[in-house]
């Protein structure tokens, strides 16, 4: 699935990085604890989070994540947007809450990170 498909499914607004919407999403991770994201995510993982601080961009950068969806309609500050733009990390906002956002993406075939690991190892 591509980020553009994620945007449609979650009826999300693209805050920045519209040029990266053809990026492939291999798995997704819903979390507000960034260390947990760094432990469990793989490359090309989409992060869904309720946090809007600058560390979500750093986490995406260090973990080679494919993009960030902010849930519950949370909007990032200008400093966060600027950093996302400079690092080339697409950010979108959906008004849907975390559980529903994750559930909808899962229903559309996006795997969780643990399933992706199993698939790679088998």
């Amino acid at each position, binding site marked *: 699935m591509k980020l553009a498909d994620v945007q449609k499914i979650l009826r999300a607004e693209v805050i920045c990085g519209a040029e990266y919407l053809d990026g492939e999403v291999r798995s997704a991770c819903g979390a*507000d*604890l*960034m*260390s*947990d994201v*760094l*432990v469990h995510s793989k*490359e090309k993982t989409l992060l869904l*989070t309720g*946090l809007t*601080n*600058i*560390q*979500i961009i*750093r*986490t995406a*950068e*260090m*973990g*080679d994540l494919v993009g960030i969806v902010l849930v519950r309609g949370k909007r990032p500050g200008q400093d966060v947007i600027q950093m996302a733009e400079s*690092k080339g990390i697409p950010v979108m906002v959906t008004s849907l809450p975390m559980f529903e956002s994750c559930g909808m993406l899962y229903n559309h075939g996006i795997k969780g990170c643990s399933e992706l690991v199993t698939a790679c190892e088998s």
Partner: protein
Amino acid sequence: MLDYVLKGGDFDTAGEASSKIKRILQQIGVRSDVIRRIAISSYEAEMNVIIHAYSGVLRASIYPDRTELSVADEGPGIADIDLAMQEGYSTAPDHIREMGFGAGMGLPNMARCSDEFSINSVAGEGMKINILIRHS
């Protein structure tokens, strides 16, 4: 060899040193999955200083076959390292957790990403972490 000075509590620039290290590794053509492990270790180590210590220095030594990271800080140190290495154990205050850190995953995560990992601490003085990650 690259040295970055870190200041405790400076969350605005937290991650900047790791970002620079990551860029250099990309420029010299290190494999992306290896870079990811180095970047995650470095970022966790950097955040550890910013969250817990007064000040610290992150040193990255990049060789053709490996990257060594060392992080030395002045701060409260760790009295019980075995306890600190347990996943989920954290002494971070609530305002750190609200920022998405202090989950008690930092030290174990660094160890998980490393080929060699060591941690030394004198409680009340500070700590030093050494990380080695091979490029192949």
